């Protein structure tokens, strides 16, 4: 059953990153890899930058593994929308937190699956920092130099947050570089070359350099 997103209004789309081609590529890639997740038998699945909630809701609707689904976003409007998406689709065992993921040290060592479609657009360092402070839709895009500043912070966080058997599914754009892990899918959308990668803890450590 596909996730119902009909409640998302025009107004929502101006304030929260709407379900887009990268969103659906991430959904399709993670769903194609469900047997891997099943074998991990996760307790905590978190989505970093949950946005509209489309990705997390799709996973929470899938009954092929038993776990808790937590969505975190820095944009308050996104957390409200994600919560209504989960509710509307009758999900259970989820929660939403409004916060900067990089300050959530209470997640360390506990998370089994991280899903993230990060802000990956190339901007100046200043713009990245400014957009992180704004905590609005601009925080969805700005990725800093090479679109890598958020991603590099994400690697550092993910390495600390994941349990030993944990994995991260991350979407990225070819200008961000290449990373150790298993590329699950690739798609060209206009001038962007999108890909989704699955990285284990060791691979994340390698990416940290």
């Amino acid at each position: 059953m596909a996730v119902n997103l009909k409640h998302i209004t025009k107004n929502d789309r101006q304030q929260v990153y709407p379900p887009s081609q990268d969103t659906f590529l991430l959904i399709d890639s993670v769903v194609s890899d469900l047997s891997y997740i099943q074998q991990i038998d996760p307790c905590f699945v978190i989505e970093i930058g949950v946005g509209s909630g489309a990705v997390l809701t799709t996973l929470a609707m899938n009954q092929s593994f038993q776990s808790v689904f937590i969505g975190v976003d820095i944009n308050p409007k996104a957390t409200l929308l994600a919560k209504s998406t989960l509710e509307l689709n009758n999900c259970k065992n989820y929660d939403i937190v409004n916060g900067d993921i990089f300050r959530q040290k209470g997640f360390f060592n506990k998370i089994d699956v991280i899903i993230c479609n990060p802000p990956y657009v190339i901007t100046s360092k200043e713009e990245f920092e400014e957009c992180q402070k704004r905590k609005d839709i601009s925080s969805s895009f700005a990725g800093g130099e090479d679109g890598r500043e958020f991603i590099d912070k994400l690697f550092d966080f993910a390495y600390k947050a994941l349990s030993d058997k944990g994995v991260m599914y991350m979407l990225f754009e070819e200008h961000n570089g290449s990373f150790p892990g298993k590329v699950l899918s690739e798609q060209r959308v206009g001038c962007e070359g999108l890909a989704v990668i699955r990285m284990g803890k060791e691979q994340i450590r390698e990416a940290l350099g």
Partner: protein
Amino acid sequence: MRLLTHNLLMCNLKTCAGQNFPLALQANEISEENTEFNLVLTQKMLGKLDWKAFHRVADSLGHTLPEELTPEDQNNDELMQRLHHLLFNIVVLSGTLTCQSCGRAYPIDKGIPNMLLEDSEEA
């Protein structure tokens, strides 16, 4: 916010590192869901949980739990059902989470804890 999530949240201020957990919960509005008892998920969750913090927050809501959880408790069906209810079915809709070290209060509104800092606090 469910109590399982309370177990993951710490004061976000860097200056509180080391004494930022657990946050004290003041619940103004609670809703009780009634999702079906799930033993497998409850047992998995117990493997992740900081029991002391959970014990304390449950106590603050008027639910007394054993000081420590023994391996045999995992087979105590009645206790497991209670833990499932506390972890998964109690949803705090509004209230505050307060750091016991610095006193910073984080509001919970519409069921969502707000851990965001002001620009002046970010450093």
